[in-house]
């Protein structure tokens, strides 16, 4: 960086008048802003959410990135085709898939086991984007808790049960596959 770089725009500080030099406008301005917020808070206009006494309002639950789920197709089978694209895309290497030959005619492989380490996951949503069949999705469940590390490694059944629990509230997102979005 050079001082005479034409790309640098030097902003001149505004010239202060008498009142400004005597520090008075700053005094009034600062204190009035503080008092405004204070009065607002005392009238109950706070932004704090007293979780768990009250539930937080998510801005848009459909794009919130919470606990994962594995979607089922119309016949109730797991939708995943064990292509490993999500595991490859995952920056945290938290997805572990064992793919075996599929018993169904419509695809070659299916996951015999599909585990996600929810403690390693950074909830970036790249698995969701990578999935070619929209099998893995992130739900709006934010209160993920557990009593041990082992409990937080979600296997296929657990992930499918997350789908069962959330499918009514959050339908599958792809319109092509019967979702609403």
């Amino acid at each position, binding site marked *: 960086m050079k001082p005479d770089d034409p790309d640098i725009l030097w902003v001149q500080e505004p010239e202060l008048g008498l009142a400004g*030099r005597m520090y008075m406008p700053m005094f009034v301005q600062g204190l009035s802003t503080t008092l405004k917020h204070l009065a607002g808070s005392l009238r109950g206009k706070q932004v704090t959410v007293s979780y768990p006494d009250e539930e937080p309002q998510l801005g848009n639950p459909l794009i919130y990135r919470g606990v994962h789920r594995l979607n089922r197709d119309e016949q109730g089978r797991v939708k995943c085709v064990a292509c490993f694209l999500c595991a490859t895309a995952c920056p945290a290497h938290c997805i572990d898939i064992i793919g075996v030959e599929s018993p169904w005619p419509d695809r070659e492989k299916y996951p015999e086991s599909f585990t996600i380490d929810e403690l390693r996951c950074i909830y970036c949503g790249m698995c969701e984007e990578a999935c070619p069949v929209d099998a893995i999705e992130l739900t709006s469940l934010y209160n993920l808790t557990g009593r041990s590390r082992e409990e937080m490694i979600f296997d296929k059944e657990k992930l499918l049960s997350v789908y069962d629990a959330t499918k009514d509230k959050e339908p599958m997102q792809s319109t092509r596959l019967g979702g609403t979005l």
Partner: protein
Amino acid sequence: MTTAALIEILVKVILLLGGVMTAAAYFVLLERRMAAWVQDRVGPNRVGIPLTRIRIFGLGQPLADGVKFIMKEEYTPAHVDKRMYVLAPIVILVAALTVFAVIPFGSVLPVDLGIEGLSEPIRLVVAPGMDVAVFVIFGLSSIAVYGVILGGWASNNKYSFLGALRSSAQLIAYELPLGLGILGVVVAAGSLDLEAIISAQATSGWWFILAQPLGCVVFVVAAFAEAARLPFDLPECEQELIGGYHTEYSGIKLLLFLVAEFLHMITAAFLIVILFLGGWHFWGLTGAGEQVGLVQAVLRVMVLSGKVFLVILLFMLIRWSWPRFRFDQLMALAWKVMLPLGLVNLVSVAILDQLRTAWQLDAWWSNPLLIAANWGICLLAWIVVAYAQPLIADNRPQQELELYDVDPQV
């Protein structure tokens, strides 16, 4: 000294220490709630009576804080100078508490307990009639500097030591404007005794904030700096610089430092009220003389505490209204702005006081006239200083940057 008088002093000491320490704890809670409210949050409101679900607005929080600080691991780094490390918080707390020996927390209590040797009426100050009370406060605040320096040095850590230098430089620099602000009051009241200063304001009815506005501004600014409150909290400055002289402290020793800082704020509030806001005096409510009934005596205590509470509220509001000064701005404010303003105030007050005696002004209009003259002088001085020494600095790089090896990529 009789035993009764000794017990009287002990009772006053216990009452005052208990009151001040409890007040400090609850002011911490109030400060946290205020901080939350100003930032549109709720703040600590959940700790109530232990083992029940009663919350009472979080009034149990100070207790929980205290227990937390005491139960915390008290970690002493291996590289510190152990004895000085332990001594520093004790010095600073003792200095902060001893100040309250000369600060009146009311006027007098006209009760006759019928005990021989008890002074009657009871004066509501631990060391009554201390002729050099203002001076004692100065001495003890300079002792508090020891706690800061020793704490920083004993930590044997560059950042702690730099923090100690930073804050002791600030404390020493702002003692001058503090003294100049007090001197104007002392000249006008004719005494260094805080009780006498209050009664001087009560008898004339003109609080010194009205009589010496500039002195009040200088004193309040200096008191903020001495108490290390924002916007002058360079000693701590936890967001930008490292925590300062108590970086290496934890547990109960850190608590002592923090309590001492809060006590400094309470002392500053008491001094502002006593020196400039009339102490226990309020027009038409408390009377002015030495002879008071019980109701008036209690009213005086309440008026004084109420004023102190309001000033502390102001401290907290200001904390959330201003950004912190940079260190050079801090020093410029002390030496180039506050010092001249304080001198102008002192000289103007002294001259006007002499004029009053010389011309024997004792008509009803003489007080307002002299005060108006002082206001005029002060306003003029403020304008001159504001133009001569604007606090707004041009922050653009002044030197030729080519002289330095600047990476063009940056």
